[in-house]
């Protein structure tokens, strides 16, 4: 997906006061910042916003006429647009399936992440149902 935005002679504030013009994709990015979000989320934005985004850019900003540059949204927002691969659990192993009072058993899980991201493992143990044949209600 490509979006177009001005990249030359962008009218902006200058350090120390005053105003002037700047060039480059960093200034184009500011124009497309508001467009990238709905594009990444699909068609979940309303007609009002769609019509507003379709309006020529130069109508919505004051200053001199703006030459239009080209910005590749996919490259610019690559991390945001392309979801990372989810972790994959390869195995889940219990050293024992029965545990007695005072006993310790170990549980291990083998997992990997397609992107090589650090993984956080959060464990939980919950009782599902009592053993009625031991006389507990």
């Amino acid at each position, binding site marked *: 997906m490509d979006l177009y935005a001005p990249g030359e002679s962008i009218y902006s504030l200058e350090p120390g006061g005053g105003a002037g013009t700047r060039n480059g994709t960093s200034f184009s990015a500011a124009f497309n910042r508001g467009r990238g979000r709905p594009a990444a989320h699909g068609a979940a934005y309303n007609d009002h916003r769609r019509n507003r985004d379709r309006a020529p850019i130069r109508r919505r900003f004051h200053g001199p006429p703006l030459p239009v540059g080209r910005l590749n949204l996919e490259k610019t927002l690559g991390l945001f647009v392309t979801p990372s691969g989810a972790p994959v659990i390869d195995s889940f192993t219990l050293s024992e399936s029965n545990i007695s*009072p*005072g006993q310790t058993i170990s*549980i291990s899980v083998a997992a990997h992440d397609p992107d*090589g991201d650090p*993984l*956080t493992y959060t464990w939980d143990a*919950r*009782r599902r149902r009592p053993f009625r044949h031991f006389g507990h209600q």
Partner: protein
Amino acid sequence: MPGEYHITVRVSDGKGGNAKGSGTVLAGLNGLEYIRIFPRVAEMKPAKSCASEPRVFIRTAT
């Protein structure tokens, strides 16, 4: 308390990607008061070529 315990692990990459694994432990003797699992949370950065194998322990007390 004696019973069937469902052990779950949630693996997260911090970017919204998750996976879950689970198993069942039977704790069936009278006198069992509690079941502990530790560490509850662990972080690990796996090497790209091999899977990580964090291990937790369950201990019971009378």
